[in-house]
């Protein structure tokens, strides 16, 4: 696996901006909120990418893990647990859920696995909707202590943590196993890779990270009209889109895709409201069909055209 | 009738045929021989339209084949019995034959053709309601040939007919093929592993090696020429004797 210094440099620069900017300028709370949401998307899409882009397991019910993290973090925090712990437990609970789901479903081939994940996410959504039918909110004291900065930096920190863990995982021998399973599961089994264990661990880690994303999201919200909304498929669709458009199986892809997603959402939501999702759906199709390496692929192409070779951190061609 | 000039074909990035040029004359039986992987089947599949050649062209009665899709080529009058028979395993003998006449021209006379096939291979009539996957190897080969004949082709391509069949069955099938060739003036191109079979049936032959034609000629001269042994067995004639 190649270490692409250029990619790391780009990420470092972006990261530095995120750290310094809010301290230097007053961005205003709505911008800060958008950025926090961006961090949530980065974490979510990177974790989906771990499972889907690197291990080849298309999970269409990812919202279950996110929602789990949101719900548990909210409940724990409300009952007095410190937020950092609440978020961590949120992540762990999502991982636990994944473990329970993973055992029966990972034996299944691609289509059935995807079907199983959608079904379970829907089931969870309905169940949660029945158990918590009314709105959930935090007591007033939390609101009076509100400060956006810790939320921002916590979100940023977890996003960085996600990037680093995925990087380390992908670079390790385990990462090699993941990609082998993605490329050809049968062949991997023949060469002695424990494909079930590989898929299972990838599932657990990605669920944990998704749960953390839920925790960050929860930290930033005081009121949920219907908590079951965080289990809705859109929380699978948007990270999935960010990954596919940004470039699946790469490290930068989900980041770029998330930025793209959030920026476009902001622009279009003004004009079109809910309908902005149509644009994303329409975009997804040509990207899947004709440009599977997404934005990263375009940038590679551009770089080759301009001169100099840039490669994603872990490329699909070995 | 059919003329290929400088045809090159690839499987992905792997080149399988290099500048192949050949001719098939009307009414003859031509054979392509060579060892495993030499490219014989590739030639058939390229003519039949399953592989699009890169470079060169193929003309059949003046029409360019290399741009057409496989089903249109069947319309023009070329039919192939593929390697491994490739029957529709869950459809009956009768249905396999019916489907064989899917091309436009053939579909009109479908039922009279089915009777003709039953005359050629009576065992198929016996088994007409049986599902193709349950037939024996020889019966399947007969069905595959029958299915290809349903398209009323002018040129019949047969790819590796004898694989896995007993000599008696092969003999029987060859007899039928030769009869049909004579009575219906059907042109046949045969790819065969078994050189003996190939040369006993054909008028002319091409020897293929590593995706190139290394020799061509009528069967008598091929039999005598040492290069056949060399190409097929990788052995010099002197060593073999």
């Amino acid at each position, binding site marked *: 696996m190649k270490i692409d210094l250029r990619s790391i440099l780009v990420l470092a620069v972006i990261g530095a901006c995120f750290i310094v900017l809010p301290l230097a300028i007053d961005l205003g709370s709505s911008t800060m909120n958008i950025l926090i949401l961006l961090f949530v998307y980065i974490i979510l899409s990177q974790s989906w990418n771990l499972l889907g882009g690197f291990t*080849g397991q*298309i999970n*269409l019910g990812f919202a279950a893990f996110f929602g789990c993290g949101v719900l548990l973090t909210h409940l724990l925090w409300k009952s007095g647990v410190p937020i950092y712990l609440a978020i961590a437990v949120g992540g762990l609970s999502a991982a636990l859920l994944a473990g329970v789901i993973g055992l*029966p479903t990972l*034996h*299944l081939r*691609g*289509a*059935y696995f*995807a079907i*199983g994940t*959608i*079904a379970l996410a*829907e*089931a969870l959504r*309905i*169940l949660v909707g*029945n158990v918590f039918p009314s709105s959930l909110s935090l007591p007033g004291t939390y609101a009076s202590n509100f400060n956006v900065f810790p939320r921002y930096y916590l979100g940023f920190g977890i996003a960085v943590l996600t990037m680093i863990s995925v990087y380390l995982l992908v670079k390790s021998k385990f990462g090699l196993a993941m990609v082998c399973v993605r490329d050809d599961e049968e062949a991997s089994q023949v060469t002695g890779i424990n494909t079930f264990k590989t898929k299972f661990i990838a599932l657990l880690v990605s669920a944990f990270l998704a749960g953390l994303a839920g925790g960050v999201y929860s930290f930033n919200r005081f009121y949920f009209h219907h908590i079951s909304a965080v289990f809705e*498929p859109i929380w699978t*669709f948007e990270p*999935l*889109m960010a990954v*596919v458009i940004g470039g699946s199986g790469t490290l930068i892809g989900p980041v770029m895709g998330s930025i793209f997603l959030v920026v476009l959402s902001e622009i279009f939501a003004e004009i079109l409201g*809910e*309908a902005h*999702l*149509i644009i*994303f*759906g*329409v975009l997804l*199709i040509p990207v*899947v*069909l004709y440009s599977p390496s997404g934005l990263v692929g375009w940038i590679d192409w551009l770089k080759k055209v301009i001169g100099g070779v840039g490669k994603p951190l872990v490329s699909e061609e070995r | 009738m059919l003329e290929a000039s400088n045809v090159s074909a690839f499987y992905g990035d792997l080149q399988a045929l290099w500048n192949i040029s050949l001719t098939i004359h009307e009414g003859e039986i031509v054979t392509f021989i060579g060892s495993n992987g030499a490219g014989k089947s590739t030639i058939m599949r390229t003519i*039949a339209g*399953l592989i699009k050649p890169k470079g060169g062209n193929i003309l059949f009665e003046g029409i360019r084949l290399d741009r057409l*899709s*496989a*089903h249109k080529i069947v319309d023009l009058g070329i039919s*192939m019995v*593929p390697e491994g*028979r*490739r*029957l*529709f*395993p*869950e459809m009956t003998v009768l249905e396999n034959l*019916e*489907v064989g*006449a*899917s091309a436009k021209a053939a*579909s009109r006379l479908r039922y009279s053709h089915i009777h003709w096939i039953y005359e050629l291979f009576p065992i198929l009539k016996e088994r007409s309601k049986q*599902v193709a*996957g*349950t*037939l024996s190897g020889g019966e*399947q080969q007969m069905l595959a040939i029958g*299915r290809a004949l*349903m*398209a009323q082709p002018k040129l019949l391509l047969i790819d590796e007919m004898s694989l*896995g069949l007993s000599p008696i069955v092969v003999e029987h099938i060859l007899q039928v093929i030769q009869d049909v060739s004579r009575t219906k003036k059907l042109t046949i191109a045969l790819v065969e592993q078994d050189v003996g079979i190939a040369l006993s049936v054909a008028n002319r032959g091409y020897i293929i090696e590593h995706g190139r034609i290394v020799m061509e000629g009528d069967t008598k001269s091929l039999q005598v020429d040492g290069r056949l042994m060399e190409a097929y067995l990788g052995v010099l004639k002197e060593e073999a004797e």
Partner: protein
Amino acid sequence: MGIFTQTIAYGILVGAMYGLITLGLGLLMGVMKFLNVAHGTFIVLGGYISYWVFTRYGVNPYLSIPLVIVVMFIIGLVVYKVTLSPLLKLPSIGNRLNSSMLITFGIIYVVDNLMTILWKPDVRSIVAPFTGRSIELFGTKFSVTGLCGFGVAIVVAVALYFVLGRTQFGKHVRAATQDAEAASLCGINVHRTYLISSGIAIALAGVAGVIIVSSYSISPNSGLRWLLVAFVVMILAGEGNIHAIVPAGLILGLLEAGGVLIVGAPYRQVVALVIFIVILIFRPQGLFRKRRLTYG
């Protein structure tokens, strides 16, 4: 005794509908190995077309079925042409399957939101003179909409099986399913066969939608619910086993009705889900044996 037969009656009517819902999904999966996760969305779309015709022109929903078939068939052709046929160029089947899932997942968002714009997010259902009424036969009550749904399901299923089994086109479809390359060698235009099959599959979804909007209700996002039902039925039937779909639907309907009898109505979807998970774990190849024959 009465409640027992009532449960069975209900299970059969619902089960036939479940089978109808699944036919389109099963066809696409069996013939082309595409997983259309937008299937539920197309069902809802069919329902909206029927609803629109009903509210605008007062047309009885069951009479609107031919229109729905035509419109959805055309939509199916377009969907195939634009989004699915490029996938056929992909090298491996696994790749195709994954990409079809991603693409159709995107279609969900496009179409769901289009429907939201056109018809607003409210829940809609067709309320006609016959809605909510029931007939009494053999001492059991059958709802009128349920009976009509049952009738439509049987007619459609029989028609589909007839087309697949007896017509020339049906033979082309079966041949292309079993060996696409050999089919093209027989003169079958496999791409056109796939194109028309896609049209039929989406049209089937549309018809299911008509039944659903008359017997239940729809809203722009309700597609997922029906998709999951179709998944369960498809898995019960076994992959590619189109003939087993209606029987599998009936089984699901009966099991669900029986389950609801035991645990109570609010947990209906939980019953379906439990069945789903049990099947996935213990018998993922489905309940029905498909004669799988190899040759050579």
